[in-house]
């Protein structure tokens, strides 16, 4: 570990806003549970990004004030939401048809680990997990046009989550295109992780020291 750490890791909110900034108007986007959900808060309504929820909702809007909750309108995370003008409802086969048929421009998921070949592990922490909950993660990871991961760079006990090879059971192989962590933004390329940006104040050496997989820097 380096001695002088003068950087301040990005907050979860900042990570979400960095993702939001990279989403062009007009994209169809599914946001996973956790930090990904926060991305929607950083997309202004007048920049039209169309959010999809696995339970048959296209054009999901922000959470309603408590007094205006519609008990029939929840998202895949079971949170109360609204529907935007132009939104629509479909059944589960059509909803996952959107996912599996490659119609979503982007899916953002959290992860336990991402490998530098794009493998993602985000659903089970052991091959022997007694009752792992997969939900729609495998459909999303395999089906969306692009998969971006948003996660802390390291585990609470200090291990890198950006790895050469995932230890946990995979959600999908070679699926991740980009990773946003509290330390930086990384593209998954044929040679591995390429650093797009680093949190201000962190050196390349420090970033590499905290990352299991080798990093590449554009000149």
């Amino acid at each position, binding site marked *: 570990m380096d001695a002088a750490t003068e950087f301040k890791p990005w907050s979860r909110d900042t990570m979400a806003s960095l993702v939001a900034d990279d989403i062009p108007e007009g994209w169809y986007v599914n946001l996973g549970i956790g930090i990904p959900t926060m991305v929607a808060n950083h997309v202004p309504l007048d920049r039209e990004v169309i959010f999809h929820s696995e*339970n048959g909702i296209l054009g999901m809007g922000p959470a309603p004030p408590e007094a205006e909750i519609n008990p029939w309108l929840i998202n895949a995370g079971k949170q109360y939401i609204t529907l935007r003008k132009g939104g629509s409802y479909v059944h589960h086969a059509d909803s996952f048809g959107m996912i599996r048929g490659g119609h979503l421009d982007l899916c953002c998921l959290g992860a336990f680990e991402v490998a530098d070949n794009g493998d993602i592990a985000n659903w089970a922490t052991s091959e022997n997990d007694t009752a792992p909950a997969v939900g729609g993660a495998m459909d999303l990871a395999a089906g969306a046009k692009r998969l971006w991961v948003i996660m802390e760079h390291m585990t609470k006990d200090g291990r890198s989550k950006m790895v050469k090879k995932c230890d946990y059971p995979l959600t999908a192989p070679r699926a991740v295109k980009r990773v946003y962590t509290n330390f930086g933004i990384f593209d998954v390329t044929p040679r591995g992780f390429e650093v797009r940006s680093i949190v201000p104040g962190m050196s390349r050496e420090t970033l590499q020291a905290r990352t299991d997989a080798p990093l590449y820097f554009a000149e």
Partner: protein
Amino acid sequence: MAINKFVRDMAEALAGVKDGSIVLLGGFGAVGQPNQLLDGLIEHGAKDLTVAVNNAGSGRVGLARLMELKRVRKLICTFPRSRDPVVFETLYKAGEIELEIVPQGTLAQRIQAAGYGMGAFYTATSVGTPIARGKEHREFDGREMVLEYALKADLALIEAWQADRWGNLTYKDAGRNFNPIMAQAAELTVVQTQHVVELGDLNPEHVITPGIFVDRVLHVPYGDPPIF
């Protein structure tokens, strides 16, 4: 003597349901769940059931209660966690219930495949994961896929918003979810509906489940799902 799929009571709604049935259970979260039909199934007594459903039940009511009574042999499900999954987790740890984990889209597609008469299909979902282990793989246009089988059922329990006497259905908001495809995939489809409408009141362009997929309808005007 006109067609009338409405039944008078729960006993009529679930008459003839057999032990050992494969049951599709509509709903996602607390929305679009056929709660009263589930209570009816508990009352009915059918056992040794295989239940396919998105979540594994909360607390000690509905599906959780059915499992607690040891009436569910096997659960086919995508997400066996929920707000309060104590019943399922206890049974599962004790080896008293079988679990088949299916990705949510694969579950939806297996159900629709059954309704459409397909035997099986190939999908990219789960390739390279433990869920694909032991399954048949094949490449299509350079993409590896696994073979998944249609999931035919004996019984589907469905919640609808409106129904007419031919069994035409609409749903409300996120209450649609698995309900329309489950209605297509079972030998016997039983619906609980919030509202009853006259034949002809539903616009033919707006019917979501045509009556051909529906066998029995019970009027259960229970109101909104609980807000948590």
